[in-house]
């Protein structure tokens, strides 16, 4: 029994094409919602001694002129996002809420000034560039021994961009629907995903190189397909174990690490898919030079 993955490349390219299109549109239309790390502002975490519903709290806050979003966590605390609160403004907010709902406990408070926020954004951007350069250098080094280094490197990077776009797209949609914001941990997760995605692609490409060297077939398509099937269980098993631990993290720890874990989860799923079904198949399409004909043939 042998899967023919390579022969079905049109399908995989179409699926990815659609996903990327949706992601790009979502990104273009909704954009990513910057959290206070990048945009400055305050997050106040409160709990009330008496029973307060989220709707009530939202209503009161709106009445007081706060436009921010309210969330609640499994511990029953409310997380209130506002523009940056100075000490006086914060005292005012707490005073107003105490008047309305009785005793409140402050569980947490985060305040980021525009100076710090723009510094954070700048450094995050530097990091993204640094990572891009680091990965490019690595790819050049890792693929220099492959028969056509430029082809291999370019395909790996296309797969990488594919994964990043999908994560960004999903977060644009989550931002528009659930109000999820991107913070520093999102960028961290994204960089970790980039590392992971390249890893997977390298393992598959390594096998292609090895099989080509052994000369298992004159047809490149067969070589790639065999390599894919051989590395399939490794790729799936590794992703599975990683996904399992991340799922445990999302389920048990919840809100505060959710964005981060979800970034990793989506990135790893996309990375596994692209390293198996996009990067090597692009290589075949390129090698065969049948771009035009291949889209006509079904």
């Amino acid at each position, binding site marked *: 029994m042998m899967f023919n993955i390579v022969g079905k490349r049109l399908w995989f390219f179409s699926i990815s094409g659609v996903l990327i299109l949706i992601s790009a549109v979502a990104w273009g239309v909704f954009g990513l919602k910057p959290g206070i*790390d990048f945009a400055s502002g305050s997050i106040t975490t409160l709990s009330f001694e008496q029973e307060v519903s989220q709707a009530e709290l939202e209503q009161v806050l709106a009445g007081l002129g706060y436009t921010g979003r309210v969330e609640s966590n499994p*511990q029953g*605390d409310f997380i209130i996002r506002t523009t940056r609160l100075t*000490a006086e403004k*914060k*005292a005012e907010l707490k005073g107003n809420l105490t008047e309305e709902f009785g005793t409140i406990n*402050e*569980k*947490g*408070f*985060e*305040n*980021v*000034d525009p100076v*710090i926020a723009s*510094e*954070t954004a700048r*450094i995050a951007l*530097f*990091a993204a560039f*640094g*990572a891009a350069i*680091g*990965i490019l250098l*690595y790819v050049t080094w*890792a693929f220099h021994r492959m028969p056509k280094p430029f082809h291999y490197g370019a395909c790996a990077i296309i797969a990488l961009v594919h994964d990043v776009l999908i994560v960004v797209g999903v977060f644009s949609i989550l931002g528009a629907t659930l109000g999820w914001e991107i913070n*520093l*941990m999102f960028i*961290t997760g994204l*960089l*970790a995903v*980039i*590392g*992971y995605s390249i*890893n997977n692609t*390298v*393992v598959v490409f*390594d096998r292609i190189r090895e099989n080509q060297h052994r000369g298992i077939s004159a047809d490149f398509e067969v070589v790639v397909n065999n390599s894919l099937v*051989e*590395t399939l269980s*490794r790729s799936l*098993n*590794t992703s599975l*174990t*990683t*996904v*399992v*631990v*991340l799922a*445990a*993290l999302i*389920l*048990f*720890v*919840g809100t*505060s*690490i959710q964005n*981060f*874990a979800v970034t*990793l989860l989506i990135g790893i799923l996309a990375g596994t898919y692209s390293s198996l079904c996009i990067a090597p198949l692009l290589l075949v399409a390129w090698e065969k030079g049948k771009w035009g004909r291949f889209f006509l043939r079904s």
Partner: protein
Amino acid sequence: MPRRRTWFLIGIIVVFALALWVLLPIEGERFGRKGIQFGLDLQGGVRLVYRADLSQVSPGDEAEVIDGVIAVIANRINPLGVTEPNIEKRGKDQIVVELPRLSVTDVQKERIGRTALLEFRELIEVPVEGGEEGEVEKKWISATAFIDGQEKVLNSSYFKENTYVARDNFGGIELRFEWTEEGSKVSEIVTGRLIGQPMGIFEGDVPLLGDDGTEIAPIVQSIIRTSGRITGLSVNEATELSSQLNAGRLPVPLESVGELTIDPMLGEDFVELSVKAGIIGILLIMLFMTAYYRLSGLLASLSLIFYGTLVLALFKLIPVTITLAGIGGFVLSIGMAVDANVLIFERMKEEFRTGQALGAAIEGGFSRAWTAIRDSNVTTFIVCLILYWVGNSIAFGGSVKGFALTLFIGVAVSMFTAIFVTRTFLRLFVGTGLAQRSSFFTPYSGRK
């Protein structure tokens, strides 16, 4: 070969025992390290970031001024009773104050960064911006005087450090101060100019408020040369101010630019929840590995226990400050730790298919998987290095740094355990009766 195998096994047992001894009990002191350090997000506490206004400081003196600020803040924090406060300079003009495991009220927080620099101001008339011709409004501006051609602002940096609180003849509260030599010159010129006019007293841009809530802005009665008093303050405010004006005075104004406060109770939940998540994650992986890779998987699970113990022992020794994201990095590294084993077992499976015996399959599987294991971890290391730099460069980078460190250590240790520990365990079976049954060591073997 068998001799080398024995040495490897002994080595592994020794390392494991050492790791266990370092780790347990968690609170026990080992090589001078005690307990596992948790970040603010897990143990609660306060992180305050201030920016010092260095515009009035002459170039070259900045570092000294910041050191002065840090010393003053340390003095102010002492009475709060924090066990391990951490105050450090960040960048050119920022100061980060970290108070772990402490609930601090808003009033206490405000006192930590309070400038306690009183500035005297005069009221002038300025044209209303965008108003009609000739329309004026009153505005407080800093009262200054030229001494030797330099403009000096009259403020409390010219107070001698002997300010005290006293009561006047009618029982009212007075804050009494004396001018330094230079201060008395500035004061003489300023008060001489302002006789009969009000003089405002400001802290930053906020007017000093009296006991009755009104601004304190006395009318200058006569030229003041040596000493003065501020009346109208409440007892508490006057006492607080006098102590801060003396030894506890900040040399430059501070602006609060960032804050992170986490209730210690909230953090405790996270530690417990993440430990639970970690254990469940590891158990699921062990179950999966054993079900899929049989005996090999079981051995990999054993080396996973070894892995977990070693990593935690390193966290305690280095020491690594564990944050919530750091736990994420650790958990992720468990998933990746298994990857090396999976790569090896898949190679072993192929070796078995070509009819190799267990011993040859193990050696072949490990040596052929090595390049992939090495290559696939390089990118993770690159990303970890970049993230570590990010975490170090920004004010609230603790989480990022924690993630980078735990992931780095995790991946490095995982390469070691997969290559040495699992292989040594597997080699134990070479030459035993079990070795004949390759189905114990790999899925689908024997077929095809």
